[in-house]
């Protein structure tokens, strides 16, 4: 029997295509268009080819220097918060009760920071850390520490990092807790029978059973911290100097502060590309976890 060829079905896809085009494809293409042009206001545009991209990747130019410096700061920030939040989240999850009414209490307490909007978190810490009226800043200064996140780079970084840990460790902990809960009791019983120590139980059972949720946690936290804007913007405004200016803050400065649409468009495209690549790498790694290649030793 011959297949009936009927291309009319494409018309059914048309509404979706129209919506996606209007909301995603056209704006993206506008950005691509901007990235190839220079503007001097008055809606006058001049063709610049790949000039902005060249400049962006060249540290000797102003644009390239700012981009690469903020990218470096951003990667350092992500690395530090991952190094703190992941182990801390695991420890929190491990020390949570496994049953009883305390479980609900712990879950609610852990969920609270996650429910607070970014700019509110930023405002809380901005005030909390002020040496004159903030509880944290005042206490630290009274104890003899010269703490001032407005003037000291190290203090600014510490504040932004502690704020992120405060805000997001719960997410890692909740994911790990879910992973831990899915381990059947028989595993712990078998480990008892096998005489395993607490550390051996963690290494042989809990960590391997958590590795999927841990990858999700690392992915989510990396993406989120790599795109961070609101909290450092509210607390430090990117300063002192440029010390806490992350890529998104730099992007907003260029696009809305200087109104350099071409540079900003090129930067956001590269920024987007980095995020896509990282996503793809994580996705590939995640889908391959547990399906490792058959070993060379041979067939059964």
């Amino acid at each position, binding site marked *: 029997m011959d297949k009936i060829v009927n291309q009319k079905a494409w018309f059914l896809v048309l509404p979706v295509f129209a919506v996606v085009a209007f909301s995603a494809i056209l704006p993206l293409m506008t950005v691509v268009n901007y990235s190839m042009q220079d503007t001097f206001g008055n809606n006058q545009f001049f063709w610049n080819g790949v000039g902005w991209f060249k400049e962006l990747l060249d540290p000797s130019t102003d644009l390239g220097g700012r981009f690469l410096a903020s990218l470096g700061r951003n990667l350092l920030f992500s690395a530090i918060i991952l190094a703190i939040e992941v182990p801390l989240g695991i420890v929190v999850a491990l020390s949570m009760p496994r049953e009883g009414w305390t479980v609900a209490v712990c879950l609610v307490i852990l969920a609270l920071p996650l429910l607070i909007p970014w700019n509110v978190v930023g405002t809380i810490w901005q005030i909390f850390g002020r040496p004159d009226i903030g509880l944290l800043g005042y206490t630290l200064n009274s104890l003899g520490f010269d703490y001032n996140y407005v003037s000291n780079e190290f203090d600014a970084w510490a504040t932004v990092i502690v704020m992120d840990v405060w805000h997001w460790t719960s997410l890692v902990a909740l994911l790990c807790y879910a992973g831990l809960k899915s381990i*059947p009791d*028989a*595993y712990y*019983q*078998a480990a*008892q*029978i*096998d*005489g*395993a*120590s607490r550390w*051996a139980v963690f*290494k*042989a*059972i809990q*960590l*391997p*059973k958590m590795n999927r949720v841990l990858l999700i946690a690392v992915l989510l936290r990396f993406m989120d911290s790599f795109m961070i804007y609101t909290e450092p913007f509210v607390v430090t405004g990117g300063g002192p100097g440029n010390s806490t200016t992350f890529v998104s803050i730099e992007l907003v400065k260029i696009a809305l502060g200087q109104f350099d649409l071409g540079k900003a468009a090129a930067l956001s495209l590269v920024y987007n590309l980095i995020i896509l690549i990282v996503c793809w790498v994580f996705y590939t790694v995640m889908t391959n976890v*547990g399906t*490792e290649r*058959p*070993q060379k*030793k041979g067939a*059964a």
Partner: protein
Amino acid sequence: MARIDLVDLAHSYGGNDAAPESFALKPVTMTWRQGGAYALLGPSGCGKTTLLNLISGIVTPSRGKILFDGADITPLSTQKRNIAQVFQFPVIYDTMTVGQNLAFPLQNRGVPKSEVEARVRQIADLLDLTFYLDRKATRLTADAKQKISLGRGLVRSDVAAVLFDEPLTVIDPELKWQLRSKLKALHRELDLTMIYVTHDQTEALTFADTVVVMHDGRVVQSGTPAELFDKPAHTFVGYFIGSPGMNIVPAVVSGHEARIDGHIIGLHRNYGVLPAGAKIEIGVRPEFVNIAAPASGLLSAAIERIDDLGRARFARVRIGDAKFAARVPPGFSVPDDNMVGLVFDPAHVHVYADSRLVEGVA
């Protein structure tokens, strides 16, 4: 390796103050001999897994004591009890190879490396796992994983006992046979005390030299398969073991006679004094009741259907209101009116008072 004594051991998940009838395990006192192959047989929920977990220390008893070679180990944790247990579903340490899985219980106890290696090789050999020793355990089939679990249970040579909690549930029927005979062979070879929990009578009877039957939290009988078959101590053992199960019918018993439905059946022993007020029943296995052509001296019954089990045929008959199973001798042809007589073997007719066996006087 040890003798295990249970002294008034009882457990309730509701705590020690729970009503005695609600105890998952009612008080039991018994001894497990060193080197024995035991099966703990009973339907789901009869307390057999509870008993096993009490011995291994996963569950702490509400009452009573557990002794290993006379030493009270009740307060000790599982790690310190020197016991191995294999669970219903395979437990595999994902990141380790098969060999590392097998070595894990030994390494945790600080056994010297050369000894660990030798023992792992030996156990892998016995379980046909040698080929897989260097492979990651996660990638194997459920069968192989359960073999690894079994191997981890057997790898320690000094354990007081190896406990199996329905270990062959996940295994294919065909492999089940192989693994069961393998376990039996391992038992002979390794001289370990093994306790095997199951609800499958075939599994219990083929594996064990002593079968412990549990019912409703109680140990109702412990004995060799032949004892359980020939002389069930409790009506539950009678119909739980054997296929079809034992016939249990209410009867009036006095002296050497039992009266069913007005008909008298001779008994091998004399039952002079029976507990007053008890429910008196007689029990006889279908194998020891033959059907025959109706005759005046025989208890008459109506055939409802005949089951052909291959090795024998059993008739399902009805005596008054009571259902009964009886053997159909080869070549017997069923009369048109379906009415037959029953021929009892008096040596195998037992008397039960309130479900418990009454020993008659010869």
